[in-house]
């Protein structure tokens, strides 16, 4: 599939992280257990006692416990539901394409970007009510897309007002297009 032929694929089914190690690493760093877990307890669909017990397990260095498993799966469920809901409503997200790059940048000047092969379609989403930034990506293998996978779910500081939250999401999408050389496919964030 070339860039010119790429079509928008919305995330419609429950998403998951690529593997449990990646999930647990993001869940721990992103405030579930290690930092400010209170902020997440209110939005993750599991009992707060389980969160507290998971935090205790983590502090003791035990990662392979039922409490932690429930917390990180709750984090995954929250991220998944948010991405799917935003896709359904066509709001708060953009679709970007990662395509094959030439070996050196001088070739880039002359090549037609539309003829490049698409490697991945990526959703950058921002959920206003819960102040969540989300990334999901879908690899394109042999011209056929495979299901979306979650890459991360992040809550920036509570101190950001709505305008700053939106602007920050926009600025970071801009960073993705600039430093990861992603191509904008469609903007559902306006």
């Amino acid at each position, binding site marked *: 599939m070339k860039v010119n032929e790429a079509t928008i694929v919305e995330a419609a089914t429950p998403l998951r992280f690529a593997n449990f190690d990646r999930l647990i690493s993001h869940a721990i760093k992103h*405030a579930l257990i290690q930092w400010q877990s209170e902020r997440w307890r209110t939005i993750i669909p599991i009992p707060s006692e389980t969160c507290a017990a998971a935090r205790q397990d983590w502090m003791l260095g035990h990662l392979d416990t039922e409490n932690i498993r429930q917390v990180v799966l709750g984090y995954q469920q929250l991220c998944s539901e948010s991405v799917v809901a935003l896709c359904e409503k066509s709001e708060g997200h953009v679709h970007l394409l990662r395509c094959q790059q030439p070996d050196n940048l001088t070739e*880039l000047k002359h090549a037609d970007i539309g003829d490049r092969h698409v490697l991945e379609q990526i959703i950058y989403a921002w959920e206003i009510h819960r102040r969540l930034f989300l990334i999901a990506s879908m690899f394109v293998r042999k011209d056929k897309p495979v299901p979306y996978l979650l890459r991360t779910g992040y809550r920036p500081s509570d101190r950001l007002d709505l305008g*700053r939250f939106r602007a920050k999401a926009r600025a970071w999408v801009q960073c993705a297009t*600039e430093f990861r050389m992603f191509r904008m496919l469609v903007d559902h964030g306006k």
Partner: protein
Amino acid sequence: MNDNDLNPLVQLRERLAAKPTEVGELPDWLGLAARAAVLGDRASLDDQAPEFFTEFKVDQDIKSWVLDRAKEGVWDFEHAQGEFLAYALIDAQDWHFLTCLEPAPRWLTPLVASIIRGWGASSRGVALDVEAVQIVEAYRDKYRIDEELLLPFVAAPLSQQEEIMFKRLANHLREMRQQRSEEPLVESSQVVRMAADKDLPPQTMRWRSPEMGFYCDADLIHTENRVVLTFMHIDGSHANLLQGLTGKLASFPFDVDERGSVSIGGDVAALPLRVTMNPALEIGLNRWHLIQDPE
């Protein structure tokens, strides 16, 4: 596509032409303007930024506005991961450029500059993953800005795994050196506390810190309520210090003069001291090695 499409400064000018429409967009616009300024185009920063400050009423209390941005950035350092962490680091680097400009923008008071420096310095303990390192490297390689203006994590980003390997090597070297030595060891916090003690007369104490294959001597002088530390290599030459740090520096303002002396204010006692010898090497001076009694 022509050559200008690939010129980073041309790209920046195009993005700066999209003016902020609300105050929430101003921090990112200002970061880009600072980046353009170190690349040689100060027009946006000098001409337009003050107008936006007035338009969005930021100029009424610019210190608080900058402090809020710094807190937002430090929050991201502590919580973000992967590419979001990389973008937070790029934000900090762009704002750090503001403190490197000569002449400095008129609105940039010393206090505001120290807040921005503290923001950049607080990135020091951040553990980068491979994804974040790749993005930061892409930023560094695209703009090719003078290394002296880059924060250490941009000049030489290290992933957490690389850092662990680096620290293991450092610990190994330190242990080897300590084994060869018979002199007593002291904690850096003791050194700083002694220097901060107002009852002691001004004095110079000489310490040596064996870490990472480096040796440096530190002269500690307390003047008024500040501690001044001058680091020197064992051969007597001044160490090329870019930053001097005490723990979470955001709340402990510091200055580095042209000779590399670090001047720290506030309650500095009992804080572990960390020093950057060059952009590539950050050295945690957790234990200092006494080689000479106070004179």
